[in-house]
């Protein structure tokens, strides 16, 4: 069984982003970029499925400008076998990403597709669910445990009330939550080896997908800042402030 993993290039999670002065977007010039943390978890899960003998090949795909190839190489260093880069000028909207991925699914016929639950830049949390709809597959979103049992996939999901387990028919889409696994670090020899692994470049036109604009970003602003607070010297002072100043207790 082949596993397809979608990975996105995003701002490093440690960086606090700033809004551009003209309010058109955030400023990503000279900002450290990385593999979206949820995608890292997705790659790790796919590699573990392969190591456990449940999968035979791990293919990673990323959509966006040329620089995405760095993140594909990172995924290859973590153990994926081959990469596909779909080159676009900017990272497209989730629905467009899902349409492109649906074409890749049609060509590659994976048994499982793993995505992150959320991009930490757009905070969309959409693409996996959309891909599942477009390909007619079931979806195991926010997964914290995955096991292949008798040709079906058991997925434990992190939901608001606790945990829920579903059995999905294969092929299926999974989106990862934080507790699914702890991704490994790529070792230097693996990083070297990854440079030689195959990486195919395609365009949306090659896949027969025309990208449409479904939403328009009108403005990006900095959030309201909080008034700087004070330090209290003791628990007594804290209680006094909460009672008499903030009046919340």
């Amino acid at each position: 069984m082949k596993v397809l993993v979608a990975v996105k290039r995003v701002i490093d999670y440690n960086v606090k982003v700033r809004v551009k002065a003209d309010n058109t977007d955030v400023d990503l010039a000279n900002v450290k970029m990385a593999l979206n943390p949820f995608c890292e978890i997705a790659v790790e899960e796919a590699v573990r499925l392969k190591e456990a003998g449940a999968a035979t090949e791990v293919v990673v795909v990323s959509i966006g400008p040329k620089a995405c190839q760095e993140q594909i190489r990172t995924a290859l260093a973590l153990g994926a076998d081959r990469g596909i880069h779909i080159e676009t000028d900017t990272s497209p909207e989730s629905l467009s990403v899902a349409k492109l991925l649906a074409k890749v699914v049609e060509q590659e016929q994976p048994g499982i597709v793993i995505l992150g639950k959320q991009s930490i830049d757009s905070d969309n949390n959409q693409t996996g669910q959309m891909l599942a709809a477009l390909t007619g597959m079931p979806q195991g979103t926010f997964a914290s445990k995955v096991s292949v049992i008798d040709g079906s996939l058991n997925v434990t999901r992190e939901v608001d009330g606790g945990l829920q387990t579903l059995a999905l028919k294969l092929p299926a889409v999974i989106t990862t939550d934080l507790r699914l696994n702890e991704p490994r670090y790529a070792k230097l020899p693996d990083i070297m080896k990854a440079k030689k692994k195959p990486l195919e470049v395609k365009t949306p036109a090659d896949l027969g997908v025309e990208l449409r604009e479904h939403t328009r970003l009108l403005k990006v602003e900095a959030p309201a800042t909080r008034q700087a607070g004070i330090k209290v010297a003791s628990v007594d002072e804290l209680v006094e402030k909460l009672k008499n100043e903030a009046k919340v207790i």
Partner: protein
Amino acid sequence: MAILVIAEHDNSSLKGATLNTLASAAQIGGDIHLLVAGSGCEAVAQEAAKAEGVGRVLCVDAPIYEHQLAEDVALLVAECGRDYSHILAPATTNGKNLMPRIAALLDVAQISDITAVENENTYRRPIYAGNAIATVQALDPIQVITVRGTGFDPVSASGGNAEVQMLSAASAAGLSRFVGEELAQSDRPELTAARVVVSGGRGLGSGENFAILEKLADKLGAAVGASRAAVDSGFVPNDMQVGQTGKIVAPELYIAVGISGAIQHLAGMKDSKVIVAINKDEEAPIFQVADYGLVADLFDAVPELEQKL
């Protein structure tokens, strides 16, 4: 123009998040229909009919919707939602699971986690863990949206008197099956609706030590939350995580104990009215958003606070 709101419920009662979503629908303006899809969910439909601003309740009561599996509910909504200008659901794990699937079936975008309505097709939503606020315009004929509860004050749960219309089930997707669930049992208020939240982080050191927070929470009638580090370390279950990728809360009072204040945590609580931080490291970033910061060892400060309340 009519708006379809998808009710959040557990087959026995309507969840509060639905009322916040109804408030956002009222701001968009237009007739509001509320869909209750479930199994044995008649009581929910009756409750839904009383919610302020609801023009009609659409109730689909069938065994296939017992667990509201996205594959099945999406087929239903893609069918009965076509005549609406907007389809809204709370940005809960249910809503987040379901709405993108509906949007893709309708070949339209989905807009996540709106916190404000500018007009009938333009919304504000946080991006980059709340470090930027985007104003987004929807260009599609049907707008599929999830609504962040903290952005909208709930409408009243009573006073309405909508008609309940029964709909028949759509065809079953036959793709997924419910196996089981482990739901957290708690007598405390729900995290996202509580007036006071007490959250613990890695500084608590263990799950047992959360008992000191629970005592404080009991005194305050508060819900208990946690940072990702506390969840990852196995101190507490995942449903307690507050943050960019967990729950979003905005209580009157948020008390962060042994939490450093990473941007991902702040994303989930920085709209709280009053923030208190208790941390032994005076440089901890949480103090930059706290109204009242106490530099102290939590194992001394929390029991003392509980005593003195």
